[in-house]
C-alpha cells in the first residue's frame, strides 16, 4: 500500500505540474496586458513535443542521449524523497534524508551541466558554466541553513525532523530556525531557476541556454524534469519549514500540492517584473543577502538560541 501512495505522490506531481505552470502563464499574461494561452497550454506543449522526433548533432556523445532520462530519474527520486504520503515509521523513511536530496540535487545539476557541454554549442557551454556558478552561490547558503535545522532537530532524517516540528519540540520559537527559513526560501527560489536568477548569459529563454540543442521528446522529458525539480525545491522548503500534514496520505498530498502550487504560481510576482540578473553584477550582490541571513542563523545556533 505504501508503494502505491509513493507512486501516487510522483504521478500526481507530474500530472499537476503543467497545470500550475499554465496558471502561472495565464496570470503572467494578465499582467502583460495579454489574453494569454489557456491554462492547459503546457499540457499541449508537452504533447506536441512528445510527438516530435529527436535530433542529434555530430559532436554529441552518449551523454547527450541519456541526459534527459537521467535528469528525469534524478528529479523523480528527489520528489519521492519528500515524505508527503509517508511517515517516519514507513519503510521509505530512511531514504528520505536531507543529504539524499542535496546529493540528488547536485547530481541533477551535474547532469544538466555536462549535457550542455556535450553539445559543443557555445551558448550551451556558457549556460552550463553559469549553471555551475549558480550552484556555488546557492549551495553554500542552503547548507548553512540545513546545518542549523539538522543540528537543532538532532537528525538529518526529514520525516523525523517534520515529526519533531509538528510535535512542537522544535520550530519557529527557535530564532535560528526562523531566520534560516527566510534564507532557505530565498535560495530555493534561486534553485527553481526562475527570473531574475536564470541565465542572462545564455539564450533569452530561462534555462534553455543549456538546452539549446535539445528538441522534441528529449526536450519534453527535460521540461517535465525541470518542473519536477522546481516542485521538489519548493517542497523541500515546505517539508522542513511548513510541515502541515493530515493523517490521511491522500489529504496531505492534496494539501501539499496546493501549497506548492500556491508558491509556484505566486512566484510570478517576483519573476514577472524587471529584467534578469547578470552573473557579474547582480547575482553576486543579491546572493550576499541570503548568505548573510544564513550566517546569522548559524551564529544564533552556535550561541544557543
Amino acid at each position, binding site marked *: 500500500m505504501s508503494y502505491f501512495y509513493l507512486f501516487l505522490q510522483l504521478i500526481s506531481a507530474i500530472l499537476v505540474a503543467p497545470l500550475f505552470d499554465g496558471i502561472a502563464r495565464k496570470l503572467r499574461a494578465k499582467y502583460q496586458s495579454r489574453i494569454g494561452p489557456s491554462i492547459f497550454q503546457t499540457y499541449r506543449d508537452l504533447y506536441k513535443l512528445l510527438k516530435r522526433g529527436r535530433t542529434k548533432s555530430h559532436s554529441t556523445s552518449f551523454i547527450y542521449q541519456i541526459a534527459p532520462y537521467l535528469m528525469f530519474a534524478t528529479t523523480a527520486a528527489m520528489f519521492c524523497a519528500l515524505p508527503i504520503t509517508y511517515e517516519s515509521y514507513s519503510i521509505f523513511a530512511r531514504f528520505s534524508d536531507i543529504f539524499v536530496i542535496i546529493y540528488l540535487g547536485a547530481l541533477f545539476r551535474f547532469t544538466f551541466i555536462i549535457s550542455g557541454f556535450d553539445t559543443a554549442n557555445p551558448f550551451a557551454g556558457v549556460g552550463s558554466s553559469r549553471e555551475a556558478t549558480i550552484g556555488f552561490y546557492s549551495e553554500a547558503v542552503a547548507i548553512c541553513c540545513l546545518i542549523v535545522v539538522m543540528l537543532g532537530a538532532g537528525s538529518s532524517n526529514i520525516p523525523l525532523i517534520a515529526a519533531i516540528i509538528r510535535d512542537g519540540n522544535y520550530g519557529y520559537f527557535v530564532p535560528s530556525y526562523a531566520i534560516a527559513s527566510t534564507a532557505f526560501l530565498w535560495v530555493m527560489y534561486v534553485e527553481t531557476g526562475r527570473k531574475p536568477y536564470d541565465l542572462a548569459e545564455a539564450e*533569452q529563454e530561462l534555462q534553455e541556454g543549456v538546452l539549446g540543442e535539445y528538441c522534441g521528446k528529449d526536450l519534453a522529458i527535460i521540461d517535465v524534469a525541470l518542473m519536477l525539480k522546481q516542485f521538489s525545491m519548493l517542497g523541500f522548503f515546505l517539508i522542513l519549514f511548513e510541515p502541515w500534514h493530515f493523517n490521511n496520505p491522500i489529504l496531505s498530498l492534496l494539501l501539499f500540492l496546493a501549497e506548492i502550487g500556491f508558491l509556484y504560481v505566486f512566484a510570478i510576482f517576483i519573476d514577472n*517584473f524587471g529584467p534578469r540578473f547578470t552573473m*557579474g553584477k*547582480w547575482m553576486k550582490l543579491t546572493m550576499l543577502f541570503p548568505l548573510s541571513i544564513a550566517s546569522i542563523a548559524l551564529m544564533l545556533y552556535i550561541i544557543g538560541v
Partner: protein
Amino acid sequence: MKCDKFIEALGARVKILEVTRQYEDQVTALVGLSDLPEAVRFLYYDMGGYLSTMVANDERSINKNYALYYALSMEGGKMFEGDEIAQDEKCFVTVKVLVSPENLTYPSVTPLVPACVWYEREAYDMFGLIADGLPDKRRLVLSDDWPEDLFPLRKDAMDYRYRPDMKEHYNEPEYEFLRPEGSGIIDVPLGPLHVTADEPGHFRLFCDGDIIVDADYRLFYQHRGMEKLAENRMNYDQMGYLAERVCGICGYAHAIACIEAAEKAINLEIPARAQAIRIICSEIERLHSHLLNIGLACEVTGNYTAFMHIFRIREYSMKLAELVTGGRKTYGNVVMGGLRRDITGVEIKESLRILKIIETQVEEVWDAVMDDKRQIKRWKGVGVLDKQVARDFSAVGPNIRGSGIKRDTRYDHPYDFFKQIEFDIAVVEGGDVFAREMVRYLELKSSVSIIRQCFELMPQTAIIVDPTFHVKPENFALAYVEAPRGENVHWIMQGSAQKVFRWRCRAATYNNWPSLRFQFRGNTIADAALIVCSLDPCYSCTERVTVVDIKSKKSKILTNKDLKDFSKTLKNSPMKDLR
C-alpha cells in the same frame, strides 16, 4: 551659393579638375586619383564633414572609366560646443575620381578616414575596384563561394536573372574572422541566426573568460541585389515600391529617399501638402520603430512585462498609420511628384485622438521602466560608443546622438516640410545603451509633436504635381532622410528611357555596423545581444524559405503561405516530392 566655400578651400589643397552642381546644396568636385585620400581627409576632418555614402559606378559607357563618389555631409565635427558649420552653409560635397578599367586600382582612403572601410570593401565585391592600402580586403557583401572574377554591378557582368552555381555547403570556403592575438581566447559565435532578433548575421565574439576582447562579424547573408534589379528593369514609379521593401521596419524612409533622389536630379518641387504627409508618415514610422526597439531592449534583458506593454502601445501607432495611409506597415503611397493618397479631415481628427493616447501611454510605461533600478543598471555603462569612434566611423541616428553628437539629418539638412516645423533634437551624453534608449524616448515625444504640427499646419494644396517630366541621362543627385535608425542616403544616376543608371541605397545601419566592434570590447557575453539590439540593427530579410534535401540534392522554394499552411495542418509535406 552654398558649398562654394568648401570647394574653394579644397581647391587650395588639391587640384580640382572639374566642379559640377547637382542641386542647390550638392556639389561634386572631380579630383585626380592620387589626390583622393587627401581630399576626403581634408573635407572630413579639417572642414568638418561626415561620410554620407560612397558610390562606385561603372561609367565606361559614359567616359570609359569607373567612377567613385565620396559624398560628405558638411555639417561640422560637432565634437565640442560650437564645432559646427552655420545652418545656412551646411551642404553635401562629393569628391569624384575616375578609375581606369586597365589597372582598376585606386588609393584607399580608409587609413586616413576609417569610415570608408565598408564602402571600399563593397566596391571590390560589386565592381572589382581594388583599394590600394585598404587594411581589410575580405569580401563584404557577396557570399564566400561567389566566383572570383564575377562582379555583379558591372554593366557587362551578368544578366540579373543569372545565378552562379552554388557550392555544396561542405565545400564552401570558410570566412576568415579577424582574430585577436593572445592565448586563452575563446570564440563564441553569435549567429549565423541572431539569437534574439532571429535575423541573419554572424557575430564572432572573442572572449577571455566573460569579457569580450574583440568581435568580428559577417553580415549580408541575404543580400537581395535590389540595386541590380532596379537598374535593369524598373521605372521610377516602381522603384519607390521596391525601395520601400528594402526594410521591414523603416521602409518608408527608403521610399521617400529614393524618390526624392530622382526628384532632385530633375529639380522637381513637390506640393506642400504632399511634403507634409510624407513627413507625417515617416514620423509615424519612427514612432513604431522606436517603440519596437525600446521594447526589444527590455525583452533582451528579460523584462517581458515592459516589452508587452510597449508593444500594446505600438499597436496604436500602426492604427495611426492605417488611418493616414491605408496600410499598417507598408504604406506604398510615394510616387514621383507627390503622393497617391490624401487624408480627410475626419481622419486627421481621429489621428489626433490616437496621438494623444500614444503620448500619455508612452510616458506612463517609460516612467515605470525608469523606476526599475535593475533595468537601468542593465543598460548603463554597457556597449559604450566612444565619441571619437563615432566621429571616425560616421555613425548615424540614435547611435551617435547617444554619444553626445548632435547629428540629425532633419536638423542639419532640413528636407520637405521640416523647414517649417519646430522640434528638439535629442542628444544624450554617455554613449551607452541607456543613452541610446533615452534618445529614442525623447524622439518619440518629438515625433508626436512633429506629427501634431503637421496636422495643424496641413497646407491645402494638391498632393501631386503633373508627373510629365523629362529625365536627363547622366544626371545624378543625393537624397537624404532621417530614418528611425539614422540617416538614409540614396544616390541615383539617371539613365535613358526612364530607367535608372545606378541606384545606390545606403541604409542607416550600414554606417553603424563598423563601429560595433568597439562597442563590444570590454563587455560581458551577457550583454552582447543587448548591445546589438541597442544599435537597432536592420538586417534584410526575405520571406521565402528554401528547403534542401541533402540526400537527393534537390531543392524547392516554399512561399511564406505554403510554409504557414504546412505548419498549421501538417498536410502536403514540402519534403514529399523531394524524395
